[in-house]
């Protein structure tokens, strides 16, 4: 058995979390509240030492007075406590949201539309991607049909009747097969993590296994 106090703290907190599997209980609640408290304390440290001090205060005091502007905009969040000025909260939010949505538009067009079209097109070059010889053509065609049928499932402005009903049903087949497969694949990763965790408890802490 290991007598390092940190190993004990880690082990007991882990057991407290696992106790939730049986049912909710005071031990879990204590761990939960410690978790939320500690993580926010850690985030305070992070925001202070990694953002506010180096990016704002140090530079502000060394002469970059313009930084007072973002600091002022940031302070507008606190107008929430003053009912007459509370609408000013919208200003930092507008800046934040506006800028990131603007940046988002070209990125998503490039990564999620143009690149995906490229990978789906039926061309001899894409057939070769599979390293499967003539079968590559078959896989590419199945993929192609699957993509188009899945898109049709997300066609909202018409009732799914007739041809659209058929294609959207096929789309669902692809979606569900994919979901099942990625569920199955993820199991392996999560179970391994659990095995590693149990090895820590039984080995590093209790010392009953090697």
């Amino acid at each position, binding site marked *: 058995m290991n007598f390092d106090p940190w190993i004990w703290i880690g082990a007991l907190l882990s057991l407290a979390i696992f106790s939730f*599997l*049986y*049912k909710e209980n005071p031990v879990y609640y204590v761990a939960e509240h410690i978790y939320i408290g500690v993580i926010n304390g850690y985030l305070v440290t992070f925001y202070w030492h990694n953002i506010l001090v180096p990016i704002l205060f140090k530079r502000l005091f060394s002469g970059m007075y313009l930084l007072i502007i973002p600091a002022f905009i940031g302070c507008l969040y606190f107008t929430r406590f003053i009912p007459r000025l509370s609408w000013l909260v919208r200003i930092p939010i507008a800046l934040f949201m506006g800028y990131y949505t603007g940046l988002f538009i070209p990125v998503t067009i490039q990564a999620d539309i143009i690149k995906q079209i490229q990978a789906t097109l039926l061309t001899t070059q894409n057939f070769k*991607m*599979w*390293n499967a010889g003539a079968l590559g053509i078959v896989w590419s065609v199945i993929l192609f049909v699957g993509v188009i049928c899945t898109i049709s499932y997300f066609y909202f402005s018409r009732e799914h009747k007739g041809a659209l009903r058929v294609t959207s049903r096929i789309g669902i087949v692809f979606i569900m097969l994919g979901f099942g497969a*990625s569920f199955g*694949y*993820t*199991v*392996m*990763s999560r*179970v*391994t*993590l*659990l*095995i*590693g*965790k*149990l*090895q820590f408890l*039984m080995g590093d802490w209790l010392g*009953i*296994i*090697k």
Partner: protein
Amino acid sequence: MKIFETLTRIDRRIIFLALGGLIIFSLLFPRFLKVRVFPPVAKLYEAVDKIPPDKALILDISYGPQYQAECEPMAYTVLRHAYKNRTKVLALSLYAEYLGLAKKVLDDVTAEYNRNARSRDDSLIYGRDYVFLGWQPPPIIPILGMGESIAGVYQIDYYGNQTDTLPLMKHIKNYNNVSILVALGGGTGSEKWWAQFAQRKFGLRVGAGCSAVLGADYYPYYQAGQFTGMMVGVKGAAEYEELASSRAKITAERVASERMLSLTYAHLIMIAFIVIGNISYFVTRRKK
């Protein structure tokens, strides 16, 4: 027929108990499971096995605690394999947080090797046989910079030695003296960066080891030849161990292969519950 009714609604705690109990049982009585080796791992093994004596292996250990269980066995088995062949090894981590995990692997495997060494020549000596370069931020700096000069990027190693004074570093100048880099990333995507930058710009061969969750994302890189070989999840590590044991005759403990047994139990019990659920569902529904 009442039994089937109950079997459609097994309390989740029974499932938890069965799963947890089986894993604990398998850990108490460890046995390893033989696995068939698939081409991605076989190719990686070949590449590491055929490293010429004048060239080195770089091992990038950049996984965090969430992927430790999957990626750590990979680090152990690759490093053992390299040591067994007396391949020169440079280890590094792209993230400061994970240096501790990297150091642990390096210390453990080196000590294990040296315990069986009979003479000084036979044992691994720091600076002559292996070097721990440590960490240089941001990741792109070592990835590109080592193409020109490794000692230029890592002017001091993890222990504070002047890197260019180490005997090993006199021969290993840049990627031209490196046969393959094995990147064990686990969730950060760093394996891709090695392929995108070091591989494309310097023609460095890159092998990857990643979590099972990322396997599908990384497979295209292997298919396109950007990864020379790859290990996916604990199964990939077990396949490598299989080769290390059967071909390189490494006798060390096979952690991943043992975990494969626990993993098999876990999968089987999950599958068993799904089957039980369906049979009893089928029976009770027919009755109605």
